[in-house]
């Protein structure tokens, strides 16, 4: 047993935190911001990872976020703040007499003060079969991993519980390709947050997305021998399932406290400064019971954290007085909001607004002229406003006539969003996920000189989680900074969408979207069929995401890629046949000369990439030119494409007296492997047979320079306006390695770069280290990348010229219409 001896007692107060979740770490953050040097802090967490945002598990499941994006505090944060973190090592006992805790690994740690943040446990209904494999809860990252594992195989899934968490799980699993049924005991979904009307609208929307919702469904048994196979309802119905998610609620986790003899009822009993029945022991978050209430939402725990930190830092505080909570469903494209008591009846009055066409429903419950509760479906933009009016207990009698139309109508000046945000009181909550109010954001902007959304995120955490308040935060920045603020955070692909390149790419994969109309529908494109900016990008992203499956959409390609030739300023085209590695022969040269004569091609030029360019070809002649070049064994050189262009070589060891490697044959081999692949932008390669580098490989996207012992692999160079020399990726020795690294690099570029981003700006953006980590250090990932590249090449190496010259593809492109006189 490790033992921290008592005699090396530090001058600081030793505080031990049990629970590395949101409540515990938020309290630690609040303590650090008040009294950074007062405490020596030790944290025990049951999960083997740093602290993350638990309410972001839904987007993690649906694939809209990855783990790194939901991390709240990185390992560096713990180190920088001198916090000892024991992750994956839960505390199993509190010894109040000796004032120490003992963890599962046997570590015994003494405390002066102890903070309990043990959270809550998901409730598991003890029906037969609840221990079968494939029955999970939805509580932590491990649960998500289990669900993703099941979703990868497809098949049916059942979610027991149609509350907030259950529905988010259902939508996530459905977007991952599972066939989902939600079983809910009550008469309508989310009955604790929604009234029957809003519940009905929500269930309809879920059904529209392909999720089956069964209400008043009482589960009798989970069926299966080893693995779950289905769920049996009490009315006799049998629902098949390979995965069962139990999301029926949570229960405060007070076991440790109870074992240690601390007062526990439903939760650990605390007073207004979060002190338990032991004055040296405090508790915050979902594990506590305060004034008879237990909370399962995030906003109250932030308020508890503040009161607790005030008290520990010995700052005068009013203490925590309980929370009025509001709820939002985190499902993309479904806007649901509820707050307060909306049960109606008694002395209450109701204002109801419906717009069936837009699928909007609003219900506001009033008592004594004040808002008592609100349910919004379809349009939740005024949720924060109603919530504020309700919390403040404002008399809304004057506003009553237009209350349902929202703040824009009621406030007069509030029609302008900047005025609206300026009019909010300082304690108005802006970010519900992280419990940040307007006053803290404004003072952070003023005191710390913040000017960008990212800085505000970094300092206050506002908008750092679900992102639904980004607009509000930006408006706050604009209102606070006036003309100094320039919004430049997420750069949408074009005016057709709010999404940027990266989020569209991620969502294509996460939602399994396989066509352009589907993307535009799901991601709420603002134009019917996009524009010349977004369509080529989407076409590429779909090609890259679903190789050998997605059918290229010609009408979404630039003319050069649609007709496989380069348009020139006079509307004629240039034609560049492929010459592997820059090598040619008399037969090919004769055929090129004959074609130039036959079609009266005015200009024949040698290009920088060691090819021959035929310039000034009329569009209608293109199929004829290609047919003749095909006949001589030549194929498209893709000089027009966002694709592999050329592999330039020097004569190498084959001829050169200085050559150390066979650069020509290596160039030919690489070109044969990589030609035909579509990429975010053009891609050029070169192979030099010795360090004299005659093939200029160090200004290419991927360049090889031979050494005595093998090859130096260079990446990320280009000529052009901003000449950029390559950086050394790594050194390899065998030709086999060259092929693998080359294919893996191209695939990484194809998967991660934005459309029309060349390798140089891409590497500048992500860093060479990132590329090296993904494909040099990580052998398994390199091999996986290479394999994906080769799979995508299967159907890519089909000569587009031959298809058009002799197979009649896109014949309409090359033949003008003819006319007959109308009657």
């Amino acid at each position: 047993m490790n033992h921290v001896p008592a005699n090396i007692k530090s001058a600081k107060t030793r505080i031990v935190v049990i629970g590395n979740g949101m409540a515990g770490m938020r309290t630690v953050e609040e303590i650090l911001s008040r009294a950074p040097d007062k405490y020596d802090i030790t944290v025990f967490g049951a999960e083997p990872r740093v602290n993350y945002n638990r309410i972001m598990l839904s987007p993690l499941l649906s694939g809209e976020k990855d783990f790194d994006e939901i991390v709240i505090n990185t390992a560096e944060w713990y180190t920088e703040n001198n916090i000892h973190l024991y992750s994956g090592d839960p505390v199993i006992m509190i010894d109040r007499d000796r004032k120490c805790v003992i963890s599962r690994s046997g570590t015994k740690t003494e405390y002066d003060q102890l903070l309990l943040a043990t959270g809550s446990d998901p409730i598991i209904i003890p029906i037969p079969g609840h221990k079968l494999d494939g029955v999970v809860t939805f509580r932590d990252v491990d649960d998500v991993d289990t669900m993703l594992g099941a979703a990868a195989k497809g098949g049916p899934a059942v979610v027991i519980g149609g509350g907030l968490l259950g529905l988010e799980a259902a939508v996530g699993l459905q977007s991952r390709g599972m066939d989902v049924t939600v079983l809910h005991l009550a008469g309508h979904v989310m009955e604790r947050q929604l009234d029957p009307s809003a519940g009905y609208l929500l269930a309809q929307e879920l059904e529209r997305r392909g999720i089956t919702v069964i209400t008043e469904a009482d589960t009798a048994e989970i069926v299966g021998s080893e693995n779950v196979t289905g769920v049996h309802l009490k009315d006799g119905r049998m629902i098949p399932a390979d995965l069962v998610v139990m999301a029926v609620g949570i229960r405060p986790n007070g076991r440790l406290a109870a074992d240690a003899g601390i007062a526990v009822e439903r939760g650990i009993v605390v007073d207004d400064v979060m002190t338990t029945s032991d004055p040296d022991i405090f508790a915050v978050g979902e594990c506590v019971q305060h004034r008879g209430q237990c909370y399962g939402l995030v906003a109250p725990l932030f308020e508890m954290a503040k009161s607790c930190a005030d008290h520990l830092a010995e700052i005068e505080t009013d203490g925590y007085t309980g929370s009025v909570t509001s709820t939002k469903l985190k499902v993309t494209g479904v806007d649901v909001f509820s707050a307060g008591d909306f049960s109606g009846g008694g002395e209450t009055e109701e204002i109801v607004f419906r717009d069936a066409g837009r699928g909007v429903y609003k219900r506001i419950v009033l008592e004594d002229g004040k808002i008592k509760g609100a349910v919004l479906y379809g349009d939740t933009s005024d949720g924060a406003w109603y919530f504020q009016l309700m919390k403040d207990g404002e008399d809304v009698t004057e506003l009553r006539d237009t209350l349902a139309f929202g703040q824009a109508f009621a406030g007069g000046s509030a029609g302008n969003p900047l005025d609206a945000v300026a009019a909010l009181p300082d304690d108005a909550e802006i970010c519900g996920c992280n419990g940040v109010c307007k006053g803290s954001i404004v003072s952070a902007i003023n005191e710390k000189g913040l000017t960008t959304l990212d800085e505000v995120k970094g300092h206050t955490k506002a908008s750092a989680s679900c992102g639904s308040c980004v607009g509000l935060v930006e408006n706050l920045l604009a209102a606070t900074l006036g003309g100094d603020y320039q919004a430049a955070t997420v750069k949408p692909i074009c005016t057709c969408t709010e999404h940027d390149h990266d989020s569209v790419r991620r969502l294509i994969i996460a939602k399994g979207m396989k066509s352009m109309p589907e993307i535009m529908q799901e991601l709420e494109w603002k134009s019917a069929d996009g524009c010349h900016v977004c369509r080529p990008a989407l076409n590429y992203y779909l090609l890259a995401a679903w190789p050998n499956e997605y059918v290229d959409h010609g009408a979404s390609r630039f003319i050069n890629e649609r007709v496989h030739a380069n348009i020139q300023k006079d509307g004629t085209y240039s034609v560049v046949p492929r010459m592997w590695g820059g090598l040619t022969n008399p037969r090919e040269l004769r055929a090129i000369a004959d074609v130039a004569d036959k079609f009266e091609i005015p200009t024949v030029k040698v290009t920088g990439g060691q090819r021959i360019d035929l310039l000034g070809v009329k569009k209608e002649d293109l199929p004829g030119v290609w047919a003749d070049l095909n006949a001589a064994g030549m194929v498209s050189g893709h000089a027009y494409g966002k694709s592999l262009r050329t592999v330039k070589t020097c004569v190498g060891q084959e001829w050169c007296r200085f050559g150390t490697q066979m650069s020509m044959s290596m160039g030919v081999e690489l070109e044969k492997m990589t030609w035909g692949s579509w990429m975010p932008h053009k891609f050029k390669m070169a192979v030099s047979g010795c360090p004299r580098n005659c093939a200029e490989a160090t200004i290419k996207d991927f360049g090889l320079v031979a050494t005595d012992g093998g090859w130096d692999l260079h990446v990320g160079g280009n000529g052009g306006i901003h000449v950029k020399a390559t950086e050394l990726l790594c050194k390899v020795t065998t030709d086999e390695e060259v092929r693998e690294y080359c294919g893996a690099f191209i695939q990484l570029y194809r998967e991660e770069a934005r459309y029309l981003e060349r390798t140089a700006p891409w590497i500048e953006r992500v860093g060479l280290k990132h590329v090296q980590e993904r494909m040099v250090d990580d052998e398994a990932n390199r091999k996986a990348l290479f394999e994906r590249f080769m799979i995508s090449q299967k159907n890519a190496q089909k000569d587009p010229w031959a298809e058009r010259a002799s197979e009649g593809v896109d014949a309409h492109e090359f033949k003008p219409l003819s006319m007959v006189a109308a009657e």
Partner: protein
Amino acid sequence: MTDMLNWVNIGPVSTIPQQGARTLQTETDRIAIFRTLDDQVYALLDRCPHKQGPLAQGIVHGHFVTCPLHNMVFSLETGEAQGPDDGCAAKVECQVVDGTVRIGLTELQAGLRHAG
């Protein structure tokens, strides 16, 4: 000019690809005939007013086309350049009658009268 237009048939709507275009050569110039996603058919002279780019080769989106040379966007309905750009592509009369596309040519375009 108040000359009567000379209508010519160029075939069914389906001869023109959706979100695409084809061209028609007349005595005096070339006409670009577009078909949008919602199957509307429009015609413009196949010549961008900026640098004479062949508009028929551009990407068709909504009721607009983007010139392939320098990405100027024109309304197919009016021929007017969109956004910050100035200019107007010449509009050509066009109708669809019983599924057949008809283009209204001037006498010069139809070769019925010669300039000068």
